[in-house]
């Protein structure tokens, strides 16, 4: 379970102070599959960065499985990201000149684990790329690259799988496949958070958090009776 309370994050843009997150509170249970949706500039990226421990809130607390991570040092945050969070990016962000297998092993190397190879092989098999392990990213299609990225995200068995527009760079059919993969992983017990601006992507999730102007609100579609009208109450 992860829980954010009263999260505030502001940026200074020239003379303006932009309040990207304005007293946001949320709670995501283990095993959920949830979408964080909002238009661009809504603060959803900032929220994702906070949830992913890439940055820290100006105020408010954030706990992952009971551990307060909102005031940790940079090195401790790196450890949290390494062990508890798996990132999937819109543009895959695989490292060039390294095989799929080496890419997937990487988080385990930073954790200095000695069973890196076996676990990476398992993860790649799980995402359906058991036969492409020695390929480098530029030898793979977009969908395959995203599968490698997902394997990399789940390889250290993190508490949260955090995907930022995971289908944004894919054609719609491949996007559906990737979303199907997330559902399958969710059914295996992974907590999945998908950050998107796209309602059709959000529909694959059981719940969504809609964010606008730095605050969690009702999505506009709820008025029209969207099946995803269930909004996390602050």
């Amino acid at each position, binding site marked *: 379970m992860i829980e954010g309370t009263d999260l505030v994050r502001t940026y200074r843009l020239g003379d303006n102070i932009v309040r990207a997150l304005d007293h946001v509170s949320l709670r995501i249970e283990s095993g959920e599959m949830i979408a964080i949706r909002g238009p661009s500039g809504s603060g959803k990226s900032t929220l994702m960065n906070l949830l992913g421990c*890439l940055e820290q809130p100006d105020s408010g607390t954030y706990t992952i499985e009971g551990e307060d991570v909102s005031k940790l040092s940079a090195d401790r945050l790196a*450890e949290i990201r390494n062990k508890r969070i798996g*990132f999937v*990016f819109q543009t895959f962000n695989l*490292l060039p*000149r390294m095989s799929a297998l080496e890419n997937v092993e990487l988080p385990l190397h930073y954790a200095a684990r000695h069973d890196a190879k076996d676990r990476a092989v398992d993860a790649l098999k799980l995402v359906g790329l058991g036969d492409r392990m020695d390929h480098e990213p530029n030898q793979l299609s977009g969908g395959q690259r995203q599968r490698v990225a997902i394997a990399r995200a789940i390889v250290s068995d993190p508490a949260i799988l955090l995907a930022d527009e995971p289908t944004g760079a894919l054609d719609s059919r491949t996007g559906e496949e990737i979303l199907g993969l997330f559902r399958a992983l969710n059914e295996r017990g992974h907590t999945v958070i998908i950050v998107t601006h796209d309602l059709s992507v959000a529909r694959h999730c059981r719940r969504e958090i809609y964010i606008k102007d730095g605050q969690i609100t009702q999505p506009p579609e709820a008025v029209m009776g969207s099946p995803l009208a269930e909004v996390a109450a602050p």
Partner: protein
Amino acid sequence: MMLWMILKVAVKSLAANKLRSVLAMLGIIIGVGAVISMLALGAGAARSVKERFSAMGTNLLIVRPAQRGSMGVMSGTQQNLTVEDAQALVGVAGVRRIAPVVSGNVQAKYLNKNSRVSVLGTTNTYFPLRDFKVERGEGFTDADTDRMSRVAVIGPVTATNLFGTLDPLDKNIKLNGMNFRVVGVMKAKGDQGWFNPDDQVVMPFTTAMKQVLGQEYLREIDIQAEDGADLDKLQADVFALMRTRHRVQAGAANDIDIRNQADMLEAANSVSQTFTMLLGGIAGISLLVGGIGIMNIMLVTVTERTREIGVRKAIGAKNKDILRQFLLEALLMSGLGGVLGVGLGYGGAKVLPLVSQFEAEVEPFSVLLALGFSAGVGIFFGFYPAYRAARLDPIEALRHE
């Protein structure tokens, strides 16, 4: 993260930009090569100086008239060494041999061949004292000295100049119009740079002073000390004796100079050392410039791979992991450049003696020095780019295009 993994990544990223990596390394390669070949030149020079000095003979003290002058301006050399002075020195404790020396230049002639040679008048002790060997014939004798005989021992170059391929022994050469019988030819010593010991005519000093050169005073008195003798004490004794003989007032400066072979060797060595340091220093600057080249490339690399750094940080790389990775890459470049530079330096040390008159000798110490220095340069100039990479904010880095 395990070292061999970082090493693998570093090798791959250098291999991905081969030309760029090689160009960045080139500064180090040339720098290390230059340092090694310059130090090799210095070592070669020191060795040849040492060889020249040992060719002069050993345990040598050279007594010469003191330079006259005041306020640092030399106004000439006094003539005050006499044959009697030389004879008196024979009795000093620790002296093995004495050779009085006079010299001058004369025209030598055999049949139609002419040569300007330097005449050296001395005793037959001069040959062992200065480590000259008489290769053919023999040296002159004490009797020759007493009788003022017109006999000469000639150097091999003089022999070739005057006689070509003929055997000079027992032939008469003309020196300033007087006939001299060649009794011996010396073994070649090789050109010493400042003068050629193989191109001279050695004869009894009596003959040289009275008949050929018309000199009353000696140019120098060469003293060879006994093996193991205290050279400093001997030098002091010689000074004391000469002050008495020349009636130098108490408190006045010595009217002779004594040059000690060890001092001369030291002086010559310090000159060659200064040159070595100068050359090595200039070469070292090129190594430094090579380091700046590596720093430049590493800064470019860090900028290019900002996104990769962001990804690595997102999946759990700590600052020190990033720092280590880029530092190792810089170190790999400078280390590889250093190894290639050692090869270049060896090559330079082989080629330089072929195309110039210098000798070169690569010392293991200079290889270690250059390698250590290039690794140090890699760490020093690699640190700042690596530090910048490590300090990148993961979010900024991930956004970087």
